[in-house]
């Protein structure tokens, strides 16, 4: 009887590649949000409201 969890090598490779792309996209999104925050704050990074 065939193993229901068996995955063809090509399918497994494609899945791994997709996961890496997804991880990369998420990382880029985090970097983007960080950069946007810095640009929006601009020179006010160090100012503390009194």
């Amino acid at each position, binding site marked *: 009887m065939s193993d229901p969890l068996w995955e063809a090598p090509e399918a497994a490779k494609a899945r791994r590649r*997709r996961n890496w792309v997804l991880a990369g996209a998420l990382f880029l999104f985090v970097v*983007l949000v960080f950069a*946007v925050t810095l640009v929006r704050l601009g020179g006010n990074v160090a100012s503390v409201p009194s």
Partner: protein
Amino acid sequence: MTTTAQSLQATTDVEPARAARWSDYVLLLKPRVMSLVVFTALTGLVCAGKPLNPFLGAVAVLCIAVGAGASGALNMWFDADIDAKMRRTRARPVPAGRVQGADALTLGVVLSLFSVMLMGMALNWLAAGLLAFTIAFYAIVYTMWLKRFTPQNIVIGGAAGALPPVIGWAAASGTTPLNAWLLFLIIFLWTPPHSWALALYTSGDYAKAGVPMMPVAKGAASTRRQIMLYSLLFVPAALAPAFTGLGGPIYLTVAALGGAVFLLLAARLAFSTAGDGDDPRKAEGLYGVKADARPARNLFAVSILYLFALFAALLAERIVGVAPLELFR
């Protein structure tokens, strides 16, 4: 051959779908549509004329591009049944079985949320709200409702494709003045002649899928008349920016010359028999092309060039620094 054996044979005849690649997910985002959206949004952003940090400008364009892609993914998820019946679309990732419908839906929803949230955070919430409205309008109002139920589908649904320059304008300035809505009007009135010219020679495909495009629902003659009518509305709208302080002399020249060609081609189409019958010589072609399609093909091709030229002229004038005409301002 028994029924079971026949179905087994049928199963083995079907080429198994290969595993999804990341490029299939890129196809879900409709990159060609995205490029036009990005171009018109960038024009709106630049025409707003407000100083904007270049990085934030790039983020705004990225958000609009990703939002457009999200709309495309949602459209492909919902329209998989229609796409499977049409030659033009049956190789798309979902109907071809390379991507699961649920995956396309997830991608669309996640990218929608990311693009709207980032737009709100990086630029302003007016632009984010307009982006959210555009995605919802395209995915829900156009895809789920209008497309399947009325021949006016692309007329009303065209609003979604016309909003990107307004979003770009709002992202740069936080406002949407009349000139921003003039850019909206130009694309809105351009959509019917553009889409119906294509539909005139591909309507066999739409009829097969049960999509009530104008040539399928009302016939080719009515469609040709309506194309002429919308062209008569569209060309003056395309000229209008030269009179409202938005376009300069380059824009006026491009709009006038291109508009004359557009009207000429629309008139030739109106007096032609394009879309009236099937052409047996081309029945096996990519789109199941209709007989005497040349006038429709010409208008379709020129419509793309004309819209591109209009927005390119506006962009070029702003970049080079050509002052807008202020004829009636």
